[in-house]
């Protein structure tokens, strides 16, 4: 048993080196068996295809190579070369003429971009070598090479995936991948309010920020992080499961035999989805305010002596937020559950009824297992979505009430993401914001992995089919 486990772990690593080895060997044979055109292509991409008559492909290779090299040499290198220190010359603004020094932000960002350009260059080079090899083998076998025209047409047929994915992949690279790599790097620097680019430099500090996150001294982030993390998990748990069960309950109530105007009831609930959240949530936030309608009415009726601290007491605020979230969450679940409940075979209930099962028993042994089975993955995405549920928290009470016991401007109802947001906007404490961002990722990834492997629909795919 243990032996197989070890083998499994070795698998991907060994696979990787095997592929790498095979690749290098193939490059070697391409060089040794290749003709002059191929050998020239090793330096000038695409020369081989051009000389063999595939102009479109060859020129594309050549243009991409030229563009990448021009980018690296003409623009990227000045930043890339300083990536190790993130700049040494500080901007001098003390004399009348400001002399600009290094900008750490630009060095880090464009340095990373240049690094990516290097990888892209190697990748294109490899594609180019492989293409040369393929062409030579085809010619040796006495076959014809595809013409430029058919190369172009293949972009809409056999290579249609490249056409379709080119734009989305570039978009995701520039606007998601690059920024994420950048911020991961920021977590290892001292980029904060005291080291603002461009007037000040920031530099690498290793794991100092992570040590700060887990230090439980007075200035350390440790206790605040623990508080916020626990509340985030508690919130996500309640927000997910309360809405889930209550949503199913409401759906069953509406679906009940003999209830009329089903569409009408549903439409009323769906209003909450339709009305933009910033309108409804901000109004609800004010409903519960100290001078709001609810407190005002209760005071006028004489039921309470002073306003209930819906948003000002941490515990009250947490409960209020969970309750308001039920108001938002039930309609979604009601919609989903309505469709699914109708899929449960009626004869299951019929036979249960003949056996004398009570409605509660039927719910527990038919409806609930079926729903859990079908919506398992959905519950997981709901849970991770709630871990990052910015809008509800921020629009309702902006993560307040603030507390003296918490550092980094965190409040009683702050989730990790709203805390991250506050540190970015209010404190410009980018270094710690980046660390928190990585922590959010770890929490999300770990939850997903652990829960995913426990899901009944993953363990036993045939269960209800």
């Amino acid at each position, binding site marked *: 048993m243990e032996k197989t486990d070890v083998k499994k772990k070795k698998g991907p690593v060994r696979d990787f080196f095997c592929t790498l080895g095979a690749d290098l060997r193939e490059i070697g044979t391409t060089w040794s068996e290749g003709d002059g055109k191929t050998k020239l292509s090793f330096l000038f991409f695409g020369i081989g295809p051009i000389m063999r008559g595939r102009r479109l492909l060859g020129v594309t290779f050549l243009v991409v190579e030229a563009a990448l090299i021009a980018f690296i040499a003409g623009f990227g290198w000045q930043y890339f070369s300083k990536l190790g220190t993130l700049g040494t010359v500080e901007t001098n603004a003390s004399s009348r003429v400001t002399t600009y020094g290094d900008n750490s932000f630009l060095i880090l960002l464009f340095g990373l971009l240049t690094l990516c350009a290097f990888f892209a260059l190697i990748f294109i080079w490899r594609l180019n070598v492989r293409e040369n090899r393929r062409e030579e083998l085809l010619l040796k076998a006495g076959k014809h090479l595809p013409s430029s025209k058919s190369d172009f*047409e293949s972009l809409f*047929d056999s290579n*249609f*995936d490249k056409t*379709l*994915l080119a*734009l989305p*992949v570039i*978009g*995701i690279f*520039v*606007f*998601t*991948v690059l*920024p994420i790599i950048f*911020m991961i790097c920021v977590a290892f620097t001292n980029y904060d309010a005291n080291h603002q680019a461009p007037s000040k430099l920031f530099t690498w500090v290793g794991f100092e920020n992570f040590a700060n996150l887990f230090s439980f001294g007075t200035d350390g982030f440790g206790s605040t992080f623990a508080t916020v993390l626990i509340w985030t998990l508690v919130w996500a748990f309640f927000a997910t499961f309360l809405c889930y069960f209550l949503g199913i309950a409401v759906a069953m*109530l509406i679906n009940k035999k003999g*209830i009329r105007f089903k569409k009408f*009831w549903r*439409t*009323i*609930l*769906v*209003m*909450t*989805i*339709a*009305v*933009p*959240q*910033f*309108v*409804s949530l901000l*109004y609800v936030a*004010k409903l519960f305010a100290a*001078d709001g*309608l609810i407190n*005002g009415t209760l005071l*006028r009726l004489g039921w309470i002596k002073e306003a209930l601290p819906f948003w000002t007491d941490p515990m009250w605020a947490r409960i209020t937020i969970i309750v308001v979230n039920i*108001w938002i969450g039930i*309609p979604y679940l009601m*919609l*989903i559950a309505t469709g699914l409940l109708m899929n449960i075979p009626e004869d299951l209930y019929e036979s249960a009824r003949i056996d004398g099962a009570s409605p509660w028993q039927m719910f527990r042994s038919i409806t609930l297992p079926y729903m859990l089975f079908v*919506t398992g993955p*959905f519950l997981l*995405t709901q849970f991770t979505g709630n871990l*990052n549920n910015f*809008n509800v928290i921020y*629009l309702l009470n*902006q993560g307040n009430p603030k507390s003296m016991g918490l550092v980094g401007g965190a409040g009683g109802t702050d989730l990790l993401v709203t805390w*991250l*947001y506050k540190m*970015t906007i209010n404190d410009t404490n*980018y270094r710690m914001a*980046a660390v928190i*961002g990585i922590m*959010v*990722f770890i929490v999300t*990834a770990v939850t*997903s992995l652990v829960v995913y492997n426990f899901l009944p629909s993953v363990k036993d795919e045939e269960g209800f089919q």
Partner: protein
Amino acid sequence: MKEKRSSMKRKRLIGNIFSYILLILISLIWLFPFVGLVLNSFRSYKPGVEYGGMVDYLVPKTFSLDSYRFLFSGENNYVQWYLNTIIIAIFTAVLQTMIVLCVSYALSRMRFKGRTLLMRFWLILGMFPGFLTMICLYFLLKQMGLTQAGAIPGLILVYVASSGMGYYVCKGYFDTIPKALDEAARIDGASRARVFLTMTIPMSKPIIIYTALVAFMAPWCDYVFASYIAFGHDSSYNVAVAMQRWVWTGDYQGYFTRFCAGGVLVAIPITILFMLLQNYYVEGVTGGAVKG
């Protein structure tokens, strides 16, 4: 036997009455904020009678259109904010739907090298919180001149650029269209692009409407990126960023009814649109939930 049936009937009747009471109660709770919002928007602020802040009663003492008049009086940029949001929403809906369709088709129908790697990579990317990238995005957009005054195209770019990762629901739908149809058309000589444009897309009307609807509604609520990218430039705010100031700033006392009026005007068209396309939305959400 007869007695038993009638007792069962009575039991069911009582059960149903109870259910109706519950449903009416639920409806009241769910509608209450919206009724309150509309009523507040019509409250006047005649000095001595009422004022435009938060009050502890629901029905206004005197009705007036003052708040609505204020929105269009030119004292603020409400019309501009509204137009901004509509422009952002329309462009986002169109472009995002196109990108999602392209990605979904490629991932559902084509088998290329690195396909699973790409899907896994995007799944992991999705686990990073979106705000993490905020300052970097701001800087990138600033380099292109797409912040403050140019915030509207900038925001559209941000929303659209990463929308490829949200392909799950649409791909799930494509997976249910039989592959045999594609194969048949390809044997007849149609290229992939032709199959995609003339067969798959016309067959996917529900999922296209769902994707566009969700994409259209998102910009109306976006606060985080919109406020950061348009920072300090009043005329390129969207409604959410601009109007939440009326609630949170210190003098919200005077602006609360104006916020309600503005909110009502935002909510009405969106709600009508949503109600009209409700069935598509339900189909998309349910399909997405089951496939996960």
